[in-house]
């Protein structure tokens, strides 16, 4: 018996295998899949896993909900890897801020443009399944999510009435006009994502790495995403930093903190 045969599956192997299982299940059960690519580390991991799951191909489109407010480094990254990974990229512009709910706090309104962009993409491309990179450890309402999460006609999340999900048996409702969110990274933590990026050598937007004492821990739009103080300029240093930090990952995201329920309101109306 070879050493590989005896080798125990480690934690990253288990996470990878489970995510691949979920992606393949989505492909069997949903006809018009799309993957939401924020250009951030988590959705890069997602694309990486898709290419493994589908034996080197990505058999559905990848959508970047473009607000026009990404960092230049992010656009550069998008254009390079769209080519390199052979992605079928959708990059429609999100509707302007004037179209968002004016009762939301300002930073939340910027994020709400993405919800509108998402609704427009759903309408235009008729997706019945959207794969996104959200994780339970990011945020308390995301911790309550299902792996296959049904959305209502208006894209809304029925947080208080979710289907049971056990033994990898998923409820997949496909009422006309509605879609499912698929969350292959739900069980991963921020550290898992970084360790996997390290192991697989997955490329990233360079803004994650410290420059002049600052780095982005969570990457979003200019104006509502802020860098944190850090000297971690390599993946190894980032992993070490995260093993010892007590600051939450999304501390640099203003929309999470403007009101107690700001993020939940975003989410129940269709945000990721």
């Amino acid at each position, binding site marked *: 018996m*070879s050493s*590989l*045969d005896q080798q125990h*599956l*480690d*934690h990253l192997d*288990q996470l990878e*295998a*489970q995510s*691949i*299982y979920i992606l*393949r*299940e989505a*492909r*069997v059960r949903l006809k018009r899949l799309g993957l939401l690519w924020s250009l951030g580390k988590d959705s890069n991991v997602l694309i990486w896993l898709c290419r*493994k*799951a*589908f*034996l080197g191909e990505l058999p559905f489109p990848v959508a970047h909900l473009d607000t026009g407010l990404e960092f230049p480094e992010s656009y550069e990254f998008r254009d390079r890897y769209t080519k390199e990974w052979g992605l079928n990229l959708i990059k429609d512009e999100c509707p302007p801020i004037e179209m968002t709910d004016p009762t939301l706090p300002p*930073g939340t309104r910027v994020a709400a443009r993405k919800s509108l962009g998402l609704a427009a993409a759903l309408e235009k491309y008729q997706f019945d399944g959207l794969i996104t990179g959200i994780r*339970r*450890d990011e945020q*308390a*309402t995301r*911790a*309550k999510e*299902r792996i296959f999460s049904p959305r209502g006609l208006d894209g809304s999340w029925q947080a*208080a009435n*979710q*289907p*049971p*999900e*056990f*033994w990898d*048996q*998923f*409820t997949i*409702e*496909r009422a006309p006009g509605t879609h499912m969110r698929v969350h292959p990274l739900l069980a991963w*933590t921020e*550290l898992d994502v970084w*360790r996997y990026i390290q192991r697989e050598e997955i490329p990233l937007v360079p803004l994650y790495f410290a420059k002049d004492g*600052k780095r982005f*821990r969570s990457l979003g739009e200019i104006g509502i995403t*802020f*860098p*944190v103080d850090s000297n971690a300029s390599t993946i190894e240093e980032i992993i070490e*930093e995260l*093993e*010892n*930090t*007590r*600051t*939450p990952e999304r*501390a*640099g995201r*203003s929309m999470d903190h403007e009101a*107690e*329920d700001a993020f*939940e309101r975003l989410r129940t109306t269709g945000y990721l």
Partner: protein
Amino acid sequence: MAPAATLAAPRAEAPVLAPRKAQAPYPIVIVGHVDHGKSTLIGRLLHDTDSLPEGRLAELQKVSSQRGLELEWSFLLDALQIERDQGITLDTTRIWFKTAKRPYVIIDAPGHREFLRNMVTGASGADAAVLVTDAERGVSEQTRRHAYLLSLLGVTKVIVAVNKMDLMGHAEAAWQAVKDEVSAYLAKLGMQPLYVIPLSARHGDNIATRSQQMGWYQGPTLLEALDLLTPPAGRADATFRMPIQDVYRRGDRRMAVGRIETGRIRLGDKVEIAPTGQPATVASIDTGRGDGEQFARAGQSAAISFIEDAALARGQIIAPAGHMPHLALALRVRAFWLDSEPLVVGSRLTLRLTTAEHAVVVEKFERIVDVENLNDADTQELGQGGIAEIVLRSAAPIAFDPHTDLPITGRAGLARGTRIVGGAVVLGAAENAASVKGPVTAVDSSVDRAAFEARNGHRGGVLWLSGLSGAGKSTVAMGAQRRLFDDGWRVLVLDGDNLRKGLNKDLGFSPAERLENVRRVAEVAKLMAENGSVVLVSLISPTAELRALARSIIGDGFHEVWVKADVNTCAQRDPKGLYAAARDGKIAQFTGVSAPFEAPTSPDLVLDTAEFDIPTTTELLIAHIRRNLALDQADGHAVGI
């Protein structure tokens, strides 16, 4: 605007054993009756192990005081507004922490009976459970129900927390009473608690620090008990099972993809594919680790190809040669039910056993369990949250393992349509049921399919026309048959009404008989299609389950055609006078009037006879058949146009 957040300097008390490599967090579910203190216990556990993220305690204090409450630990997990406003946990959630020994993920589960589906969702992901009980009130209804569900979910490592000891003066007798009660109940389920810990979550006694008030207790604190749990045994040494999730084609190679649930496999291994038992030899293995993979093992998602040209399909189970799963047409299962609409004898369900889906009918309840005392309940239906032993009957053989042998291929989700509404562990094949005695060896036809098809100039296939009575199924089928026949096609019509005068004349219209009706027609259609014929089936087949059954029997050549017309249009046409009779109550269970018709959600073809006339819809059907079944010129035979 939020200021730039600062990453804190490393904590003063550096972790004793910071794992350098990613270590899987040990998943623990916290269960128990509502108000026995689950959320408070978790909050306290995180606080006392110094695991709360920065700013979280302050945020908790703020939202608690906004609601006029003292520090409310439950808000840590009850993140939804409705949960905070109503003071209850609706849904399961997860939170991470670590001890010096290892990381954990704590799964919180709601205690209300109406949120049992969420409790099951949470608990199914756990390796061990903390069952929280109340020292004052003892074991309550949901304590028992949760314990029973833990046993069905296979979560048998249970730590019992006897909470609120402060309300009982920290008296040993109070702890002993709960300990005796809960141990007796668990024993009836074949479980015994690993530890029964007296504690007070509100004050932090025996959570992370030993209680000063309960010197009489010699056992571990909750945190110590967690660190004493042993990891689950690996599944790689069990018998090999890989349920097929999908079939991918790469070049001319077909690969079965899926997750290896148990055992291991290597290149050259001889396998059998259940339920048909066809033999195959492993030619390649791909788990995404690069070229030249030789092995794969339990837990990995793999793509496997075979030397032989095996017929692969989702729902089959790859097993070692000579070690196939059992096969049966009826199963005894122990089930839990989560739907608000009760389960009764005759209910139709989809049994989802790994990736296989079987249309089944509840044949009988062997017993419905009274969860209070584990005696037989005096009821004929299984309500929400109920547990029962049931016989489920299928039209096609089900491949399974008894759950005591191999848990993963011995359990199943129960679905109504696409909704998961319950779960079941398989006890075995039902007694007196006509079990299939091993794989049946088929005799090969002396003329193979390709030869039939070359002579006919077209492929064989089945066009399954479903729709209401009067929608025009038979008319369209007969019209298409005539035209194709005139063009030299080999084409047959299987008409539901005609078949009920012969082959199916012993069958009525109960759910089980409709299932058998569809099964027979599908089997006959399949035989004809295999001999190169185009078969037009005209059958109401009112439910998605019935059509799924037909699809599963016929396989690749199955085309679902919805002959669409609304019930009013059909009733106006009423060619056989059936609608009038049904309205007069002369026909029970008449589809569209007194029995439902589930519209196909993703048919291969829709023929809308209310919108278009019969010649047009007939043309559409013919065009679909030519497009899908005619052989190309390159295939060596002219297409009959």
